[in-house]
């Protein structure tokens, strides 16, 4: 594995550790606060611990499946999607990882994403629209880009980020409820309501920030890695060009999963989208590939 790949993995490991610490601190803080309101720190920490273990384990073992089912992806049939299976297997060999599971989304918009806690247990999902729009080389480019995310362990970071965001949302909700309906200390209630409200407002902002932290740089890195696998820049740039001209708008896909996809719904040029976009503009990506 090249030093380049190792650097990507290392920076992802640092990110994962930071996310984990953030996750732990948040849960400790919120459960202390809940315990404080309920007049029993033990109860608060108990809730926190159960939550931490339960949610963490669930996310670890079921996270990918959840992402897959939220996008409506289904396992791709071996004979019906023969070419897709072949392409995934080819790139897995190039990356020397076990073949990821192959999923299909019934959607006319060309798009794809990858998920998985480790290269040994991962999945690649593409839309039927992608299969229709791309020729074999371009499809190989897209799949290679997704497998690069798996090998760089971007998918792991994304899953953990998703868990963190989800847990902030749920805990701040619990916190808000107990501070209104629960426990003694009436005199302090308004403080907790404000803190609870703040947490509820902050959660989506933190979510956005995490999606930014999972930076645009790694899209370039995945593009470059894809070309390294396939030794065919034309496939990758051709695919990106087709993605650029394809209509946007994946129906029935949760916005919170947007950052997983190769073509983000937020790829148009408005100011807010530029500020909060998880992906660099497609034009820039195409340019960089062509200069490789």
């Amino acid at each position, binding site marked *: 594995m090249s030093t380049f790949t190792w650097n990507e993995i290392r920076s992802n490991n640092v990110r994962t550790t930071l996310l984990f610490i953030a996750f732990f601190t948040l849960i400790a803080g919120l459960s202390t606060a809940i315990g404080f309101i309920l007049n029993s720190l033990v109860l608060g920490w108990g809730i926190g611990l159960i939550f931490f273990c339960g949610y963490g384990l669930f996310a670890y073992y079921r996270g990918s499946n959840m992402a897959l089912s939220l996008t409506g992806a289904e396992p791709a049939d071996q004979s019906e999607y*023969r070419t897709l299976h*072949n392409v995934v297997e080819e790139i897995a060999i190039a990356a020397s990882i076990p073949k990821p599971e192959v999923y299909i989304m019934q959607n006319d918009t060309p798009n794809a994403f990858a998920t998985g806690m480790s290269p040994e247990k991962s999945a690649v999902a593409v839309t039927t629209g992608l299969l229709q729009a791309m020729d074999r080389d371009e499809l190989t480019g897209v799949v290679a880009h997704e497998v690069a995310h798996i090998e760089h362990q971007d998918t792991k970071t994304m899953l953990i980020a998703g868990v963190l965001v989800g847990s902030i949302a749920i805990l701040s909700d619990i916190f808000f409820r107990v501070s209104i309906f629960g426990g003694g200390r009436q005199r302090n209630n308004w403080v907790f309501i404000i803190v609870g409200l703040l947490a509820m407002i902050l959660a989506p902002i933190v979510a956005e920030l995490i999606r930014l932290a999972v930076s645009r740089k790694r899209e370039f890195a995945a593009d470059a890695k894809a070309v390294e696998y396939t030794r065919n820049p034309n496939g990758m740039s051709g695919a990106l060009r087709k993605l650029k001209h394809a209509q946007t708008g994946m129906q029935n896909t949760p916005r919170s999963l947007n950052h997983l996809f190769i073509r983000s719904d937020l790829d148009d040029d408005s100011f807010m989208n530029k500020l909060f976009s998880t992906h660099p503009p497609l034009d820039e990506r195409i340019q960089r590939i062509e200069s490789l």
Partner: protein
Amino acid sequence: MTTTWILIVIFVVLTTVFVYLYNQLVSLQNRAENAWSQISIQLKRRADLIPNLVKITRQYADHEKNVFEQVSDARESLAQANTPQENANASEQLTVTLGRLFAVAEDYPDLKADQNYRQLQEELSSTENKIAYARQHYNDVVTAYNTQRETFPSNIITTLFSFKPLELFQESQQETDDFTISIDS
């Protein structure tokens, strides 16, 4: 007393380095072996697909005997290849003859439209890609291993435990030889 300690520390450090380097060589060797088995799986798979391809092409173009013979010869020599070098040469030969077979098929629209034929073509080109990717990977690992083997300080371990150099999987120099122009002076 101090000297004893210094000697012990030196001994421990040297042993650790020694064990580390030895393990690194072994792990690279295993990875190369693993990468090789991936190539041979794909080579075998391609060889298994060929009889079906020949059979189906015969149904439409039985008189193109020349090509069928070439393909089966190439397949035969691949079956007898042992070293990575021999395998690479035979595999290259097979790729070339298969290319001819596909070129012949271009003249038979009925054959090209045949569902089974198209499936076989997809499987074969996918297997060709897999061989190419597996080869990249194998050559990367072997190069890493050979470099490790020859560079200091690993080369001490190499001589002590006789780690053998590994052969790359690459085509013969034949193509370049063909282009050598001899100038009679």
